[in-house]
């Protein structure tokens, strides 16, 4: 059971990544690979600040801001110099690799015994429920501190989801969604779509970096490699969410992204438990996203084939 709880915690931490990928991929239709760098940047900055005694909450904010700056750079490279989205992201991602190494001073920065958001929560749980106490959950005995962390994350993610949903339905947010849906149309209505893209990709990477910052704190270290594969991971979460919840409205897709992130992490945990080689994780994720991407097209073709038979 505790492995399930841990996976759910990981899933919720990564749901901020999923929200970021949702913004770039789904709202803006922008395949943003900056994510792989900005996730690590968020982690590296948080680790550095926390090791130097900075407040963990403040560190998260700094990480969020740094993510926004990276995303804005990608957006600017794309809109000002007309470099295609993927290449713009690759440039910034590559540059961030050096930045991340400079921030950490080495390729792996552990933070033993540092005060993180999670050690804070552990302390609170200790004060409330005593040390090492367990609760029964669905007949399993689990660490109460894990439950406290899980619930806190759940509240934080839900709040974030609601705020994002509110934002995307404001006048500004509606114009951003229109930029991704039909930029010619919204430009003809007086919107500077370039700024919309810069701001949107910045926001997306803010969430991604926040996810990295939380991940570093939960794992207790930051690593220069930890961003690799994160874009596809986020995409997988968004797609699972869409399959489970549907794409009918902004609120549903946001909820789906969070749910997808948790489900995906659970699936992975189960697969690993059943003996999957951890080295195969990325190839399986990639294959999964590939299938999810081509499936709707295949189903349509099947349908139209049936349709043709009917009329023949």
């Amino acid at each position, binding site marked *: 059971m505790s492995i399930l709880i841990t996976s759910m915690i990981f899933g919720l931490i990564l749901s901020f990544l999923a929200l970021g990928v949702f913004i770039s991929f789904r709202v803006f239709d922008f395949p943003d690979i900056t994510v792989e760098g900005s996730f690590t940047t968020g982690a590296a900055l948080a680790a550095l600040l926390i090791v130097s005694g900075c407040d963990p909450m403040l560190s998260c904010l700094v990480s969020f801001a740094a993510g926004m700056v990276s995303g804005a750079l990608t957006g600017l490279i794309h809109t000002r110099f007309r470099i295609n989205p993927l290449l713009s992201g690759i440039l910034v991602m590559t540059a961030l690799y050096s930045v991340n190494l400079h921030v950490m001073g080495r390729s792996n920065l552990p933070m033993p015994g540092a005060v993180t958001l999670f050690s804070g929560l552990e302390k609170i749980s200790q004060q409330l429920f005593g040390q090492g106490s367990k609760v029964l959950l669905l007949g399993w005995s689990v660490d109460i501190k894990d439950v406290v962390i899980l619930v806190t994350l759940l509240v934080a993610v839900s709040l974030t989801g609601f705020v994002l949903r509110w*934002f995307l*339905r*404001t*006048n*500004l*947010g*509606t*114009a951003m*969604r*229109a930029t991704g*849906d*039909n930029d*010619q*149309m*919204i*430009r*003809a*209505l*007086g*919107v*500077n*779509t370039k700024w919309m893209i810069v701001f949107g990709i910045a926001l997306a990477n803010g969430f991604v970096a926040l996810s990295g910052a939380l991940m570093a704190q939960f794992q207790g270290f930051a690593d220069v490699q930890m961003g690799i594969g994160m874009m596809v991971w986020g995409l997988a979460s968004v797609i699972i969410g869409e399959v489970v919840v549907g794409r009918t409205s902004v609120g549903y897709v946001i909820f789906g992204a969070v749910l997808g992130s948790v489900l995906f992490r659970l699936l992975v945990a189960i697969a690993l438990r059943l003996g999957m080689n951890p080295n195969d994780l990325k190839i399986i994720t990639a294959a999964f996203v590939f299938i999810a991407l081509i499936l709707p097209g295949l189903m349509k073709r099947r349908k139209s084939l049936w349709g043709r038979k009917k009329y023949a």
Partner: protein
Amino acid sequence: MLELYNIKKTFHSGTVHEVRALNGVSLTLEKGSFVCVLGSNGSGKSTLLNAIAGTFPVDEGTIRLDGTDITAWPEHKRARHMGRVFQNPLSGTAPNMTISENISLALRRGKPRGLGPGISHGKKEEYRQMVRPLNMDLEERLDNPIGKLSGGQRQALTLLIASALQPKLLLLDEHTAALDPKTAARVTEITQMIITRDSLTTLMVTHSMHQAVHMGDRLIMMHQGRVAYDFKGEDKKRLKVNDLLALFDDLRRKDAIDPGVAALLSNNYV
């Protein structure tokens, strides 16, 4: 009022693909006038509308809107004062967003887009009032994504979006050409209704001589990047489809002769 002075635009300048799409167009549109633009394929009609809307910068010339020089303005800034409808019914609306959301976007034209709610319940009634005159039963489908509607419905909504808040200029580029005849007739009717109701200054490119004869109070005919003919007032009213056919023939005959000779002939005899 829109004033164009000596607008020139060449594509692929200095290459073998060089195209002089606009070759010195000067034109003044009085406030409230409705001008039809006719011309053969490639005569520069769309390029003219794109130049006015700011899709690309022009090579030469000046564009003024209500006395303000907007030649250097970027597209999105000009769009605060102009509504546009394109030939493709898919161009003018955001397919994955609802009718309400599309209209709400239009109602913010030229206004700041901040953190106020995009659509609220109070505004729904306003949207319903707006779509009712279209007579397409869209009143009860405000929460449907626009992508689910037919081409005619989408084009009618695009007209609504383009004309919302009474822009200083309405640009229509063969906006009925991609529709089936019956739907095209319906959209043409709606076009006339909106333009008359709001007294919009309009530039409408059309492929249909019938439309050109029966709509608007002025007609210009483009040829090789220039305004070849310009009919206003009583002259415009008297025009028949046959007259236009004769003019097209005329231009074709001139094309057949060497352009230099044609210029000489027309200077001497016309």
